């Protein structure tokens, strides 16, 4: 497919890499000559230097031939203009733009009424707020991903010192009777991604991903040695940016008492004007004495969501030391991500990864119902629909011959039944498969599961 990406920043580059590897022809438009030179060196793609809001620049980039247009520049205005230009200049079937304004819903309406068809508007703050709200009540849990409309959950958890499962093999564990519809799907250990077998041993510091039906989620967490979470009553948020406000509002709606730290006085006043029940504090949340005095020891969750990655990391570590069980840090720079988790921060969220995940999910929709990338896209969890012509359908799993480095974590029957497959389980057409795979296997896997009919979609 011919894909045009406006904006060659981190998100644009990540998307380009993925889309190129999946065999697409990608053109990137970026205004900075230096950035373009860099992209040119990295990617097998056409790079056009120019402002994406200029009609001529987009024509030069071949917008008339583009089948998909993705606008992820740093400026909302430019992204909106790209959508508008694409509407008249191209035959693109799919248009995706990223907006950072909190007016995103209104823009959705405006675009629709003005006849500009945009298939997906990404608002990273909303995505992040949602993912934070999914894990905020679960100390020890780093992330929760949902599949099959929420029927299946993939729960990431860190094994901390003292957890009874440490040192045991998966075989021993399954002898203890875990919930039937649950499975340890992946282990991240240091830089390694392990798709485990029964002989694997769990170690302190591992990040373990457990796949489970929603009904068994709580039991699975208990089985994995996580403490029963205390009810969420008080939360600290650092940083009065859009994300901080978003999350504070979501928490206010659940009657949680929120204290929000904002260093800038004027900004603090503006935030206080927006949030009704949150206590806004004009103080530096990376200062230990301040945090202690404000009562950090009594909070159930601490969210470091300032613009500054380093501050977020420092504050999160402080909060851990003060005994907060749930700590979330916003990390913008992707290369910090794997390191931060090793520093004891339970959960990291990244607006860029959130945007990339959402766009990839959308781009591959049809064959792939959803996709989640891990570890800077080394591994993926994909939700696929088994097409009637797939070579896996109608056979027991042990004979189906799935590609190497892939594991079928769960399958969901059209009736909604969640099954953790064993060797004798038979895949039926219409089943949703949740498959774990290393990234390079993904294209093969998609084609094979969907069958020939799905390929053109």
């Amino acid at each position: 497919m011919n894909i045009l990406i406006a904006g060659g920043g981190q998100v644009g580059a990540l998307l380009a890499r993925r889309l190129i590897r999946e065999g697409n022809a990608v053109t990137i438009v970026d205004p900075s000559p230096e950035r373009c030179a860099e992209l040119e060196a990295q990617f097998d793609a056409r790079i056009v230097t120019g402002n994406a809001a200029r009609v001529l620049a987009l024509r030069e980039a071949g917008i008339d031939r583009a089948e998909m247009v993705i606008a992820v520049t740093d400026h909302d205005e430019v992204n909106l203009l790209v959508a508008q230009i694409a509407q008249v200049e191209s035959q693109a079937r799919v248009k995706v733009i990223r907006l950072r304004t909190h007016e995103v819903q209104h823009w959705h309406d405006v675009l629709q009424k003005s006849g500009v068809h945009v298939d997906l508007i990404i608002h990273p703050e909303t995505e992040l707020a949602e993912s934070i709200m999914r894990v905020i009540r679960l100390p020890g849990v780093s992330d929760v991903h949902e599949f099959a409309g929420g029927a299946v959950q993939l729960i990431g958890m860190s094994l901390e010192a003292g957890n009874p499962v440490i040192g045991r093999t998966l075989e021993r564990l399954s002898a203890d009777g875990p919930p039937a519809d649950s499975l340890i799907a992946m282990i991240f250990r240091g830089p390694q991604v392990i798709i485990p077998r029964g002989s694997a041993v769990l170690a302190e510091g591992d990040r373990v991903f457990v796949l489970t039906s929603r009904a068994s989620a709580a039991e699975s967490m208990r089985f994995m040695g996580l403490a029963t979470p205390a009810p969420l009553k008080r939360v600290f948020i650092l940083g009065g940016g859009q994300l901080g406000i978003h999350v504070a509002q979501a928490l206010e709606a659940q009657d949680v008492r929120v204290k929000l730290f904002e260093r800038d006085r004027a900004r603090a006043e503006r935030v206080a004007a927006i949030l009704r029940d949150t206590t806004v504090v004009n103080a530096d949340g990376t200062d230990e004495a301040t945090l202690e005095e404000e009562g950090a020891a009594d909070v159930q969750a601490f969210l470091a969501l300032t613009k500054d990655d380093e501050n977020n990391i420092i504050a999160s570590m402080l909060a851990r030391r003060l005994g907060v069980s749930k700590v979330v840090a916003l990390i913008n720079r992707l290369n910090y991500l794997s390191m931060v988790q090793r520093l004891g921060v339970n959960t990291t969220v990244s607006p860029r990864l959130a945007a990339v995940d959402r766009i990839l999910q959308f781009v591959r929709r049809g064959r792939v119902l959803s996709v989640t990338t891990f570890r800077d896209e080394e591994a993926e969890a994909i939700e696929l629909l088994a097409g009637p012509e797939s070579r896996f359908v109608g056979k027991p799993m042990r004979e189906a011959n799935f590609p190497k480095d892939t594991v079928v974590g769960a399958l969901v029957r059209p009736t909604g039944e969640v099954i953790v497959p064993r060797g004798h389980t038979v895949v039926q057409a219409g089943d949703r498969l949740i498959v774990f795979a290393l990234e390079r296997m993904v294209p093969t896997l998609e084609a094979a599961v969907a069958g020939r009919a799905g390929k053109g979609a």
Partner: protein
Amino acid sequence: MLRPLAILRALGWFLLVLAATMLVPVLWGLARGTGGWLPLVQGAALTAFVGAGLALAGRYAARDLQQREALLLVVLVWFAASAFGGLPFLFSPHFTGFTDTFFETASGFTTTGASILPNVEVLDEPIQFWRHFTHWIGGMGIVLLVIAILPVVGHGGMLLYRAEFSGARSDRLKPRIAETAMALWKIYVALSIAEFVLLRVAGLSPFDAICHTFATLGTGGFSTRAASVGGFRNPAAEWIIAVFMFLSGMSFIQHYRLFRERQWRSVLGDYEIRAFALLVALATTAIAVSLVWQSGFGVERAVRGAAFQVSSIITTTGFASEDYEQWTPLTHVLLLLLMYIGGCTGSTAGGIKVSRAVLLGRVVSREMKRIVERRGVFAIRLGGEAIPEGTVQSVLNLVYLALLVNAVGMVLLAATGVDVLTSITAVVACMFNIGPGLGLVGPAEHYGHLPALAKWVLSVAMIAGRLEFYTLIVVLTPTFWRR
């Protein structure tokens, strides 16, 4: 720099409009065939003469007024209206001297309703009509009337409107100020017609009905009877007037939204209207209970009297359905407190206004929070919306200023030898445009016996209060006159 000619020209036009309004009672007199309209014609002629002279003198002057000129003009207009509007009284019997007519007219235009007349029933019909008509004009605003009908001022219009129209809330109905003024006057006229018809149905004479309509809508308080509304012994009329006083104490901007734009939910959900209604309900209940228990009133009489008097005082009208001076001390204290609060912003009522009173409460509660959370940043909210710090500050300043005027007024009145209760309540009743106080200026009394100096102090207090203190007092500061 102030441009005297530009100000005088505008002032001239205001006087011409004022002269024209004096002819309305003349028409009433001619239509009814009563005599006594001659003083009005004389007053109108003199006012028009001076007005035409000023307008002519400034005919080449600029139309667009600057901020300072607009402020000065509004102050001058109110003093000129009180002086020239009193001419018909001066030319008629029963009034003795310029001090008295200035007081009576200022009391009329500022919708105070305090009278120097021991017995109002002796006045000729056209003069009586004029007295009440000043309430009706002054309620919505002399300046606003002129802005609505004459393009006398250009850009200055908004400045004038702000200086005269009450409100911490900058509601503006239409993009153009003249259209806003017109819209407000239409609602005002519509409500007036409704009350007039209802009072006629309740059995009042056309003259009594129209006079009390004027006094109700402007939240004035002049009556054609010495015993005020109580003089009619007509419970139905008392209820009608109580309801219309309540309506006049609500913002006319909100009336517009309600009747023209049908925004029922947003208007009925408005925090100020809710607070206002709550205050009226609570005070009415407390006073009615006190009257039944402590004074042995029948329930119907107690509720009617309480509802009437609470509406009358909180909207700063100042009608009396009975001599509440004879009621219990609790009722007096409650009524005195209501005097300070007043009606809603954007109404014809005086007082510091309900929205400001609510805001004061919020400021106090924020200070409490700040003591507990010393690094906390808290916004002051009214109706869910955060109020900018600048506005909060200016409201606080306004309240200080009002208390200062209150204090100075009391000292000056006491200095003229007036007793304490009378001094206190007379100043409050005048500066918040209520009318009757307690003691020697109670509902069954009048202001005629006060010393001349006291009358002048109270006249200035009335105008200061009507212009919400800042406008008048800023003109008296040296900063204003420094170039």
